[in-house]
């Protein structure tokens, strides 16, 4: 308990000190996980819509894969992405291994099934005739999707929270494909691991608390949007 209180104190002191290294790591964490969440949304929402509304061969198989993917172990994802991007791997020529882009890619793979899965559920909860209604009222394809997204916004916000929450807190994939390089790929979770392994537990705890606070603020904003949007 004393450790925790001490860590909290140190976390506050760290934040107050204005240590640029800390703020750079926080910014990088938000940037990598934010970019991965946005990309997962751009790909996952349309895919989730198709899986929820269209009937096609292999749909059930795809749904099964998505549901399995919602619980992917990050370290395993990291390993696969590492094999893809490693110098000797099929995408080695892109020279992406141990970069922030590699971390975004790995986190995208983790977040995508979550976004797809939540989207499928929220679209299925809408009345089946809603897209037809919007068509007959005169909404073209994009307007229709926009209106449907508005109707499903509670579920879609939950999707963002689930996806972002999963990747901002993961360490295995970021460590494997990012390499935890101090001035380029270190993020809050990998920094926690580093400080723990150095025996610097109070600092590790402080960083952990900052990570939690960051996740909390983002989720608070989303929750606020959700409660305003809901009834």
């Amino acid at each position, binding site marked *: 308990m004393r450790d925790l209180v001490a860590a909290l104190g140190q976390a506050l002191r760290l934040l107050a000190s204005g240590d640029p290294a800390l703020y750079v790591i926080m910014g990088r964490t938000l940037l990598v996980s934010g970019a991965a969440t946005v990309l997962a949304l751009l790909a996952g929402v349309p895919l989730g819509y198709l899986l929820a509304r269209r009937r096609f061969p292999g749909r059930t198989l795809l749904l099964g894969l998505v549901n399995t993917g919602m619980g992917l172990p990050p370290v395993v994802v990291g390993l696969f992405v590492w094999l893809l991007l490693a110098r000797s791997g099929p995408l080695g020529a892109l020279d992406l291994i141990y970069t922030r882009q590699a971390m975004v890619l790995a986190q995208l793979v983790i977040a995508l099934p979550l976004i797809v899965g939540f989207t499928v559920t929220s679209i299925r909860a809408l*009345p089946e005739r809603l897209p037809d209604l919007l*068509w*007959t*009222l*005169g909404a073209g394809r994009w307007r229709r999707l926009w*209106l449907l997204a508005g109707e499903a916004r509670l579920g879609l916000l939950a999707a963002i929270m689930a996806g972002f929450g999963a990747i901002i807190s993961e360490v295995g994939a970021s460590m494997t494909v990012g390499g935890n390089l101090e001035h380029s790929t270190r993020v809050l979770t990998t920094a926690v691991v580093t400080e723990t392994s150095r025996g610097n537990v109070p600092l590790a705890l402080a960083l952990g608390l900052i990570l939690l606070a960051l996740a909390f603020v983002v989720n608070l904003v989303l929750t606020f949007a959700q409660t305003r949007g809901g009834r």
Partner: protein
Amino acid sequence: MSDVAIAFEHVRVARERRTILDVPRLEVPTGTTTVLFGPNGAGKTTMLRLIAGLEKPDAGVVRVDGRIGTPAGGVAYAFQEAVFLRGSVRANLALGLELRGLPPAERTDRVDASARDCGIAHLLERDAHTLSAGEAQRANLARTLALRAPIMLLDEPLAGFDRVGHARFLEDLARLLRTIAGTVVLVTHDREEAFRLADRIVVVAAGRVRAAGPLRAVLERPPDRETAELLGYTVLLDDDGALLGIPPGALRPGPGARTFRLVVERVLTVGLEARLVGDIVTRAGPVPVELPLPAGADRPPPGETVQIAADAWATIGD
């Protein structure tokens, strides 16, 4: 707009290799209220969806005002299930007008007018998802009316009402349809609704059009036995060998213009009413019927043969 608002030409729709709709030819004249009448699963809603452009036929074409392929918003369509977006009734009624690019002031006018016509003016500011089934159906119709589209499709607009609400809304709907200049295609499986609302009737069963034409013409001369039975007629062979169809409610006890012999099976009591149940004796065998007994009339015992009469009848076929 031409004389023909909607035309089906050699239309065929299949699901899982089974033909569910086969309409070689059907025309809906402009400015009429045409009722697609038939049992559930007959293909009526599929016909509406084809007209609206929500489905495409596997073969043939559906022309709406001469054009093939109805665009988004090309017709106004009230689905059987009243579906609303989140928000007020007013916002829901205005959405279609907004999507059609109408200025706000005109949207307000039209929404107010159609809400008044459908008796939901007092509900406009309510959350659309809190409406009762009957209110939702009225709002569903109001949303469709507000579009003032030249072609309006109504799928079972009276579904979901209780008995009192049904009777009241049927009257309102009949009155509203008289004021509409456009073409209305209305789907129902209910005889009373069809007979009350139709200028023209299209009898649909098992994916095929059994009869189509002005309501009176079809009722006076159903083309075949199946159609007559779908229309609720009691079908029997008279002594001259002609196939007669007796419309629902046209049978009563006692001699009359057309008299038949009935073997009484029993007298049924339904509340304060009594109904005579039995078989009409015909050359082709017994035909089961049920008819009301006037209050205070004698109740014949089972097995007795009595006279009953039809005040109206149709000759079936050519």
